[in-house]
């Protein structure tokens, strides 16, 4: 490597450092982002002895520059000469880990965590761990906050004496005077517990966990709930009851809704961590309470977990628990006063049918689905419709449509176009399952009505829907039921409806085949080339281009070509443009 450093003298460090000191922040930032280029130009030796000391000394800068620096230094190991020298990066990162701005600090900690892995066990004790200790006992909260994120990366690889020190430092930070530090410690508690020996988890972590979970500030307590998941996973089942459950029970009934929200939000993880027995005895009642919480945020978070919670119940008495304990609460939530709660429930409630099976679904769940389908809030209705398929699997489409069809038909005319759109998307599925007769009788009118919806997205979806129906039911069905109605709209006084005819023809021609296209659709399209509205005329050109490949060459030459030629001389420039395009695509010129 020494030979490769030969041309470094070309770049005196002063010039490079001037770049890093440029008055213009943007230029300084650019230079810092290319710090690796500078380091490479200097070579490993001078990077260590000149560049890094400079960077360490000039830590006072714009946060944006510091952020870039903190990020760069995490990838610097090779540029200072490899793992042997990686500890040279610690001084600048240590300073960065103490600055005020959270993003910078977090990035410095991230880089420190990264390079900690590149330290040898000896270097870790000689260089890294002292840094962690210094940060942990810094004056200002920022350094102590940063220290919290570094314990777990060095703990596994140091000697037992140093381990004891690390544990002591962590303990101290957990009872720090400033809530910011306690929050940082609480958020790293789970991570730290994972690298500790089980005995220390029981002796140290549990007492810290208990203390943080009863902190005077709810922002600290709620972070202890997160740690609870990791801690419970680490402990043997027989210890959970005495070591974790008292605290968890207390958190589930905390006077602050934020803590209860956190419990609700982490409920599935907690449930898995504590196992089936405790779930049955403790979590079921706790979950019931959360579903009945006085704060809507909490109820919504719990409602979101209903399906997962039920799924993860022990199978032997899952159904019984759901039917006697959970379902009554769910029933109440269906008519909750808060729309977010109902909407959260609607997004998962359909999942219960798979768990409860056909009979229970029909008897207990269908009424709830129906109620939610008729909810005043569109979000709720939408969530139900979008999950119809899981119920479909359990009770079959016929049962589903018999009970839900009236509601669905109602929703087809919903005031919210997004709800109508969701319904349209279910039509091909419903049609396929219900069969032609049933469809013609109950749904066909709806499908046609959407073609003249006042929202373009709906008309477009309705057109696409027709195509899918024809693919299912065949050309003959199309010829008898759909095509006449579609073509009838060509005489509608509203030009938007006349254009819908063209759009339908575009979509249907392929599925209907040459015969129908040539005999029934083409004459209508050609006739529309005399429409007064230019938009209709250029759509005629576009349609002809689209259906051209389906037609035979005779029809193309004798009927299509003259019309397109006429349109190509239209007074409107767009009509001309599309007519010419069609002529060239169909090779009629």
């Amino acid at each position, binding site marked *: 490597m020494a030979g*490769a450093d030969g041309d470094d003298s070309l770049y005196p460090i002063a010039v490079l450092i001037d770049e890093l000191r440029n008055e213009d922040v943007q230029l300084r930032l650019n230079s810092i982002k290319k710090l*690796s280029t500078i380091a490479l130009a200097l070579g490993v030796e001078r990077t260590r002895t000149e560049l890094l000391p400079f960077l360490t000394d000039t830590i006072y800068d714009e946060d944006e520059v510091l952020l870039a620096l903190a990020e760069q230094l995490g990838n610097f190991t090779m540029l200072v000469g490899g793992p042997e020298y990686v500890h040279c990066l610690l001084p600048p990162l240590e300073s960065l880990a103490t600055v005020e701005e959270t993003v910078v600090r977090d990035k410095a900690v991230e880089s420190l965590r990264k390079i900690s892995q590149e330290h040898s066990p000896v270097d870790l004790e000689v260089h890294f761990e002292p840094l962690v200790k210094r940060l942990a006992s810094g004056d200002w909260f920022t350094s102590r906050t940063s220290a919290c994120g570094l314990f777990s990366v060095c703990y596994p690889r140091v000697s037992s004496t140093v381990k004891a020190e690390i544990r002591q430092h962590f303990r101290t930070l957990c009872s720090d005077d400033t809530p910011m530090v306690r929050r940082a410690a609480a958020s790293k508690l789970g991570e730290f517990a994972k690298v500790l020996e089980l005995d220390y988890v029981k002796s140290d972590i549990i007492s810290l966990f208990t203390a943080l979970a009863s902190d005077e500030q709810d922002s600290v307590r709620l972070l202890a709930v997160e740690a609870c998941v990791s801690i419970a996973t680490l402990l043997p089942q027989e210890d959970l009851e005495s070591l974790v459950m008292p605290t968890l029970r207390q958190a589930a009934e905390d*006077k602050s809704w934020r803590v209860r929200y956190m419990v609700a939000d982490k409920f599935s993880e907690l449930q898995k961590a504590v196992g089936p027995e405790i779930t049955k005895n403790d979590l079921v009642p706790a979950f019931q309470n959360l579903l009945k919480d006085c704060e809507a945020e909490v109820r919504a978070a719990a409602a979101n977990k209903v399906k997962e919670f039920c799924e993860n119940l022990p199978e032997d008495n899952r159904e019984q628990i759901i039917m006697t304990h959970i379902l009554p609460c769910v029933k109440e939530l269906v008519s909750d006063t808060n729309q977010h709660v109902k909407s959260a429930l609607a997004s998962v409630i359909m999942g219960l049918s798979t768990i409860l099976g056909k009979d229970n679904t029909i008897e207990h769940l269908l009424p709830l689905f129906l109620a939610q389908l008729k909810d005043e809030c569109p979000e709720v209705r939408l969530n139900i419709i979008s999950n119809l398929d899981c119920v479909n699997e359990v009770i079959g489409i016929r049962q589903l449509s018999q009970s839900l069809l009236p509601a669905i038909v109602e929703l087809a005319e919903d005031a919210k176009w997004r709800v109508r759109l969701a319904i349209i998307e279910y039509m091909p599925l419903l049609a396929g399952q219900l069969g032609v007769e049933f469809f013609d009788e109950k749904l066909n009118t709806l499908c046609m009505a959407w073609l003249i919806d006042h929202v373009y997205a709906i008309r477009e979806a309705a057109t696409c829907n027709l195509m899918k129906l024809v693919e299912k039911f065949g050309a003959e069905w199309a010829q008898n039921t759909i095509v006449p109605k579609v073509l009838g709209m060509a005489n509608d006084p509203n030009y938007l409806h006349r254009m819908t005819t063209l759009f339908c023809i575009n979509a249907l021609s392929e599925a209907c085949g040459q015969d129908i296209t040539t005999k029934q659709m083409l004459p209508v399209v050609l006739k529309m080339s005399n429409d007064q509205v230019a938009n209709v005329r250029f759509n005629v050109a576009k349609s002809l281009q689209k259906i051209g490949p389906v037609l035979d060459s005779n029809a193309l030459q004798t009927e299509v070509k003259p019309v397109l030629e006429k349109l190509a001389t239209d007074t409107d420039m767009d009509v001309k443009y599309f007519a010419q395009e069609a002529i060239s695509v169909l090779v009629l010129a």
Partner: protein
Amino acid sequence: TCSSSSTPNFSVPSAEKVDGFPRRSMRRARQRRSHSSSQFRYQSSQVELTPLPLLKDAPVAELHDLFCKKLQQCCVLFDFLDCVADLKGKEIKRAALNELVESVATSRGVLIEPLYPEAIKMISVNIFRTLPPSENPEFDPEEDEPTLEASWPHLQLVYEFFLRFLESPDFQPSMAKRYVDQKFVLQLLELFDSEDPREREYLKTILHRVYGKLLGLRAYIRKQINNIFLRFIYETEHFNGVAELLEILGSIINGFALPLKAEHKQFLVRVLIPLHTAKSLSIFHAQLAYCVVQFMEKDATVTEYIIRGLLKYWPKTCTQKEVMFLGEIEEILDVIEPSQFIRVQEPLFKQIAACISSPHFQVAERALYFWNNEYILSLIEENCQVILPLVFATLYRVSKEHWNQTIVSLIYNVLKTFMEMNSKLFDDLTASYKVEKQKELKRDRERADLWRGLEEHQDRRMQMLTEAARNQRNLQERGERGDPPSPSSPQTSHSDQPELKPSGASSSSSGGGESAT
């Protein structure tokens, strides 16, 4: 994770995001609603209240006993979201509270020692509660109507009672301090996050009184306010009572003893100045600027910290905030000592020049108004030799190219002022303007050349290194075929190799690394 998990909010429903329309109507509907206090649920069973005799009719011997009973009666909480629930009970409590307020405010000798714990208990039970989640997750204090506290009819009277209690001539801090302790104050401070401005107004006056009367709590109150601000700045960006707390601090700073303690300077540098970074600065900027100026008037030596701090946090993209910063700078300059001005004039006027060249005319205009301030003008005049060279190029250039005529004419005035101040310097600068411009262009070219050279060098080096690495690997593989690698050496050379590619690939587009492997 701290910030996101501590304020769980509903996500915006997806249907509304796209629709755009229903959103506003829903927000409006929400604004009319008011908060329920979560605390209501935590009362085990509803107590039936029976009216007690009036305080004013009570014989002197029974007065204290009756007062105490009324305090206990007022510990019962009512459901205010259901506005027709237990109307009778609500009325009895309201009347009792009114009487308590009146009695504390007007009669002497009522506040005897045994009443202190009862009074503080009644206050605590009523006001301390976890504030409910905001009805409007994107509550913008400037745009939206705040959600009001539903139980205000009672709550207001409780606050009124508390205030009268603290202000009563009979109030004895030595007795109160046993009950109004650190825990009490901490809970009181948390209430400042209330969305209801009426509540924050009461809290402000009350905290001010507590600070004034209970000397033992002062340091603790300052520390906790620090924590609230730091959390606001660095974690959540959300706290409704910043302006109120700053207002209290404004008068606290006024009373600081000289020389300023390290704690107070730290508060200025590490809390007040960073508060300027908040997104919602406009809501509390007036109070914040007042605090900053108070500090300067106390002790002029903090001036440099302040100006350099403001320059560090100068807004980059938000012109509205830039105008506020300029306003604050003018307030500071109004009271700055000339000796301090000299210490900061250079970085300060570089920033002012940058503002003058802002394409946003309000920013440019606000900066140019400095020249209408007589005191500032006198400072500029005294230091013309330093300042004019700093701003000349900008003034000259912007006077030729700003789109807004008002700005152009303001700049002409400024240039004229400078010309009158020091015509010799002005002429020199005008003469050298073009030369300086050329020099600048040359520097830019040199920089571009330097970087081009550096990058070419990097490409060469990367190529060499990859080649070296490949050779080394080949060598090693040859060696390993005979000799299995020992797992006990985690830092031998083969751990270097994966390092090579990321560090090179991250900064250069050299494909050498990839093609070699």
